[in-house]
């Protein structure tokens, strides 16, 4: 069996069997002051509204797939993640759970993704301090910082969760932000089998008034699944 073929199989099985493939070598000498500044800048954050473009570069696809969407966040923990225009998938989350809605299928799943951890965006929100006022110390308890590079006001952070179950199958989570304003620029999930999912934000508006209805959804006529914990 060739090495290439073995790697392919490893990738497949990491997905099918939930394998734990990562090995982490964190750099304790990385200067994290830009990250600290980013957290401090977010302390006064009340809301975010932003467009995004998600690029899915899978090893199994010849060319990446791009999807547009919109994101709303209201402090302390409510968010709406809307994929596609018109939306194909909507995720509305709060501290106590997540609803995944498929409007075209008239189907919703309550609690499903947040409990299984398959919706990493929410985890990223938590890690990056959107859910609650996070400090650098708390962040370091949960994350290995692989590297932090600064270019002008743009900071590029590469990290991995310390929790092996959260880091399962991941090579790194990359996060770009503005060192001065603390504003998010993009984040990327890179898997060990070589695929990546990159989300770039644009038209970011912070602390604007967000209508509370954004975080509600009328599920009448929908089939709703409640995932067992």
């Amino acid at each position, binding site marked *: *069996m060739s090495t290439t*073929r*073995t790697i*392919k*199989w*490893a*990738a*497949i*099985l990491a*997905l*099918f*069997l*939930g*394998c*734990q*493939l990562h*090995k*982490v070598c964190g750099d304790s000498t990385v200067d994290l002051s830009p990250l600290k500044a980013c957290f401090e800048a977010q302390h006064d954050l009340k809301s975010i509204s932003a467009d995004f473009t998600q690029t*899915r570069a*899978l*090893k*199994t*696809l*010849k*060319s990446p*797939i791009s*999807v547009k969407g919109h994101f709303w966040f209201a402090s302390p923990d409510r968010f709406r*993640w809307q*994929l*596609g225009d018109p939306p*194909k*998938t909507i*995720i509305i989350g709060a501290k106590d759970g997540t609803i*995944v809605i*498929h409007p075209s299928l008239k189907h919703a799943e309550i609690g499903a*993704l947040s409990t*299984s*951890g*398959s*919706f*990493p*965006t929410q985890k990223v929100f938590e890690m990056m301090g959107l859910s609650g006022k996070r400090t650098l110390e708390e962040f370091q308890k949960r994350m290995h910082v692989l590297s932090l590079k600064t270019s002008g006001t743009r900071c590029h952070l590469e990290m991995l969760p*310390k*929790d*092996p*179950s959260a880091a*399962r*199958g991941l090579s790194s989570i990359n996060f770009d932000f503005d060192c001065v304003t603390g504003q998010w620029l993009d984040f990327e*999930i890179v*898997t060990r*089998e070589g*695929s990546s*999912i990159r989300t770039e934000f644009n038209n970011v508006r912070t602390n604007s008034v967000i209508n509370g209805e954004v975080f509600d959804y009328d599920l009448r006529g929908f089939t709703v699944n409640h995932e067992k914990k």
Partner: protein
Amino acid sequence: MKKNRLGWVLILLLSAIYIAAGLSRISFNIDILRLLPTHLPQVEGLSLFLKNFAQQDELIVTIEAPDADTAGSTAEKLAVMLRSQKGLVKNAVEESPWETNPASISEFLTFLLLNQPEQKIHEIQQRLSPSQASVTLQQTLDDIQSSESPAEMLRKGYDPFRIFSSFSGLGFTEESPGSEFSSSDGKFRVVYVQAAKPFSNYKQTDEWLHQIKSLCSAQVARDGLTLGFTGEPAFVAEISTGMQRDMISSAFATLALISLIFWLCYGRFTPLFWLVLMLQLIFLLSLATAGLFLNELTVVGAGFASVMIGLSVDYGYFIYQRSQTHSGTVRSLQWHCLQNIVWTSGTTAAAFFALNLSSLPGLSQLGNMVGLGVCVGAIVMLGLFAPIASGLSKSSGTAMGSRLDFLFASGRFARFGELIALGVVVLLLGALLFQGPPGSDFSASTFRPRKSESQSALEHLYSRLQDDRGMLSLVVSGKDDGEVLLRLRNVQRGLDEALRNGSAKHVLSPLPLWPDAQRQKANLPILCALSHELPRLKATLKDNGFTDDAFVLTESVLNRANSWRNSRFPIWPVTPTSEWILRRVARHHEGNHLALGIVEPSPGCEEALIKSLQGEGVYLVSWGSLGTELKQTLPREIIKVALGLLAGILLILAAALRSFRALLLFVLTTALVLACLAGAMTLLGMKWGFFNLAAVLLLLGTGTDYSILLLLAFQRNGGDAVGARRELGLVIFLCCTSAAAGFGSLAWAGNMGLATLGKTCALGLLIDGMISLFLLPRACSMLSRKSQPVGS
């Protein structure tokens, strides 16, 4: 003279050969289920589970580290080192086999596919057909585009033809935070170590374990790292060596106590030396007999040595006592003692052999071993010790009485003893009356060693990985694959119903992993035909925007199916990876077909669930349920055997005493002893369990002798209770204290059950001796004053 000496040499030589042959065959069985009635469904099911799924040659090494990286690297280092020890280790696994050799999983995935309902395979065939293949791929692309879960989009990328979409709900593909190799935080890791070859006995297991432990400890010499060793080899080594230690230490403790008692009574060294030597010979001969005629010693059987020494010494006392006043030849001494010893050893052995009436194999074994030992003891004492005692008596010239004779002849001592005995009885009955009878504990923990490193490591493993102790194991057996499948399908209906009505919270059924020959026969030709279309499928895949990587799984699975085209049905996967997955789920050797699943019952529904699902070849078992079942059945069983035993004793006594009043006194004495024992247990915080109940039977077999001896002496002395006590006081005292020493020495045994048995028996014997010696004569006197003398 020369001929006589030759005979002795021959006897010694034969004895030595017999002992060597017997001891070399001794082996221990640590399975506590071997002690329990095999007809109980929980015992039967758990035995099947342990025999087939407990991994007899697999040691579990646990690593606890301050951080996940250290734990991971240590596990890897240990596994590599252990794998290099070819003479000791067949394999050491620190991660799922498919992680090191991912391609090996394709066989198992194909096996799962082959067992899918025909309808699903037809759907797959349809999705892969020339007209639908492109549509299927476009649908997959749409799904990848709309999915928000990275895991799902990647998974779909590797299964573009949606072959494995039907695998959802199997439990196999679901992500879980931990695994059988690592805790969710990664700080706790597990290495599974398989021995190079099966162990032939416990000594080999112990030696192997020590080697593995020292190798691991040498490799991991760092602060903050904790290693643990558990699994079957660890338990076998620990419990077996513990049993051996218990057996030897309790036997020596008994010998020491007996020596002390003899010294206190007679103050003579030479007869004591010979007596101890005889007891050791009896012990070795009995143990050799057990090794030759019994398969394996259970934990209860291991306690036999001290019990048997405590009983056999009675014959030695008797012979020695007689030799002091005997003036005839050795033959006449032997003949004189024979009549008494045959009677007492015969009844004791019969009482112990009667334990075979019980359906408890452990108790039967103990009964057989003590019964054998008592017979051996009688033969050795009569054949060897009687000539020695006679010779010693003749050489000393004068009869040497006991130092304690004056005590049992003293009226003051008798009155003092009566008052003390009465006080103790009142105290114990008061405790029983006011504090209630002792509680009960039939849990599996009562069978385990008092201190167990393996158990601690296992408990830690449960706490760090998935804890399945509250769950029930579903064991389904059958004579062949088809019968197991049929039973699995039947039980599946019950499981579905249990999930619907809420009596079960979660079910992991082995049904999807059990091969269905009919489905395989129907599905295989379809999958083989699809394998011939691989070039077309690959071209379609590429035309629709997928890369070669997306085709690896499809290609491998269809090729594997094609390789099975000439196989016999049912097809079982055979690669090491498949075997690793199936090792805790299925067994399919000739005549031994078993499937294992897990059922989590809702609180309070366990018993009802077991009753509703259990049937022929279907067992829903757990250690907790075993305790419940034992609590329901064991007391009944023991009472049944005890009543049988008591009836036998009463029958013999009726013939010997020929007096209703004497029989009544015997029954009342026995009842009082048992009531006082219950009171003493309450006072000491002891609980009824398997071993205490077994102790009651032993007590009936041995302790009742004291009251019987006194009642017989009472008759012989024409209703003179003081005379009866003077005649037998010392003998009862010696027998009682020796037997109590034998049982009592077990109180320090490493095995909690054996210790409980020892404590209860010693307590019961002392109570029995005290009541028989001090209260029974008084009762006899009072009754004889009121009416005719007891007996005729």
